[in-house]
């Protein structure tokens, strides 16, 4: 007769395939089920834990869906005004050059209202790391058109689809920033499949490592879904993202350090 294993017998170190990083708090995530933010948070916190950087890290949260990032990340954090996170991070880093300073921003925050702060922090080559979650929409305020919204895409403020002749084109700000001599490492990743999660984590590790080595500004874009804002199921939204977002925002390294 087969005997069922007890919890104590299963939970032994040699059986562990995954553990939750201690740098994520116990607070329930405020993100919609299916959204990529949670995974992006986890990867950044895992890297900070693995590099033993908790005591040296100061993070900057944006305005947008991730405004409450400080509720979930067990590190010292500041909440910045809409779009101003790169300026806030500049202020911290200039006064604490040996700390690990990062911003975590969405596409409305970083590529619309904060374009100036983003571009100039990159142009000065501030030794900070910017994590940029791009889902092509303003999620927090209820699904309005973002600078990254695709042509023809329907949102609350482009109900008949984004008409590029009057509403402008999707802003490929990551490509633009990669052209600046101040940026050191610029990459675009996603977190919608296990393989992509592994690649994204590698990119985050590099970005953190380069800051420690004082190499200059590292920029990690994560193209993510917004199933609520796009009015799809999580699975549909991931498929839609692959078919529609990735052709405009292709994944991969955009600027890599010269050997």
């Amino acid at each position, binding site marked *: 007769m087969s005997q069922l294993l007890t919890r104590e017998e299963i939970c032994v170190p040699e059986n562990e395939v995954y553990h939750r990083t201690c740098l994520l708090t116990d607070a329930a995530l405020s993100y919609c089920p299916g959204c990529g933010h949670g995974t992006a948070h986890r990867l950044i916190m895992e890297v900070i834990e693995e590099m033993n950087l*908790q*005591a*040296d*890290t*100061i993070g*900057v*949260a944006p305005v947008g869906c991730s*405004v*409450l990032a*400080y509720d979930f990340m*067990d*590190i*010292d*954090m*500041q*909440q*910045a*005004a809409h779009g*101003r996170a790169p*300026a*806030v*991070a*500049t*202020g*911290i880093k*200039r*006064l*604490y050059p040996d*700390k690990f300073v990062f911003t975590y921003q969405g596409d409305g925050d970083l590529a619309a209202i904060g374009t*100036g*702060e983003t571009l*100039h922090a990159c142009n000065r080559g501030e030794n900070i790391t910017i994590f940029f979650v791009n889902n092509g929409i303003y999620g927090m305020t209820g699904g309005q058109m973002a600078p990254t919204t695709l042509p023809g895409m329907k949102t609350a403020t482009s109900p008949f689809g984004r008409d590029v002749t009057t509403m402008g084109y999707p802003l490929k700000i990551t490509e633009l920033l990669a052209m600046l001599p101040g940026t050191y490492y610029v990459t675009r990743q996603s977190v919608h499949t296990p393989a992509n999660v592994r690649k994204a984590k590698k990119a985050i590790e590099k970005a953190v490592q380069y800051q420690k080595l004082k190499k200059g500004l590292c920029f990690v874009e994560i193209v993510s879904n917004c199933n609520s804002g796009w009015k799809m199921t999580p699975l549909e939204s991931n498929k839609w993202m692959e078919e529609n977002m990735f052709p405009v925002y292709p994944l991969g390294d955009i600027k890599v350090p010269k050997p």
Partner: protein
Amino acid sequence: MKDIRLMKGNEAIAEGVIRAGCDGYFGYPITPQSEVLEYLMANNPEERTGMVVLQAESEIASIHMVYGGAAAGKRVMTSSSSPGISLMQEGISFMAGTELPCLLLNVVRGGPGLGTIQPSQSDYFQAVKGGGHGDYKMIVLAPASVQEMYDFAKLGFELAFKHRIQVMVLSDGAIGQMMEKVELDDQLPRLTDAEIVKKYPWATTGKTPDRPRNIITSLDLNPVKQEIINQNLQKKFRHIEQTEVRFERFMCDDAEYLFVAYGSSARVCQKAVLLGRAKGLKVGLLRPITLFPFPVDELARLAKQVKGMQAIEMSAGQMVEDVRLSVNGVVPVEHYGRLGGIIPAPDEVLHVLEQNFIHSKKEKQYEPATY
């Protein structure tokens, strides 16, 4: 031996912040205060004390760099002039909401809009009543000399950290640009990172195992909690009103008529008082040094002594509202102001006071000089 130098107001405050142990300055050029950034860049504070000086891409970026540094416990500042200060209101409101200490300098020029680069006092409301969104106050210091531009650097940082509040030095183009002698203090040391961790346990300096994480945010979506946050802010402002009022009395002891003026206007009125006294008029001057907190009690006391108060401002009448609230109708309070960058002359303001309170009202009103 005393270290006495001839300096511009803008240079004096720049030297003042270096000597007060300031950690960082973030600013953007604008007339008539660009000398602050220029002096800091030329006088190498990085080498002298390790102070960081950075020219930002805008006033908006400047104030948010200040936010970042202040939230990490550093002594940080920015400076600008009126249009630039308008751009900073977002960041100032966020610093009010997060109770971050900082020093702000407004070398006021005439507005509205691009206005003029000439001196003005038309930003009183913006500075004193809370120029950004939300219920908040800053401590506002009004220098009337180049020496005070220098002194208020140190005083400003002290008050900012004592109360965890933003301190604005509300100067103007005349005080910023004019040269006077300044007596300098010895260099104060900057705090070390370890001292900051100890002195400011709220600062985001990196979470260590001995404490919970520090979060600097002005957001709380729970209305009950948000009301408590606001009530606590108001308590702090009431406490400051009780403890930090500063003013200067000039020939007030036997005064029958009182000028009330701050900054450049107070310098003009000081001369007007002497002119009046020479004519046998019992005139005095009450100069508010803190505009918030305003010397309400002192003006209420003087209202029982004098026959009238003449507010003089380089504005259309802003501070006069606080004078009237302080006096509460006990004596007449008149306003006289020059606009658009014009500084009134001592005989001009004395004449106005005489017309309003001493001569018969039927006489011809004084007509200001035209240029």
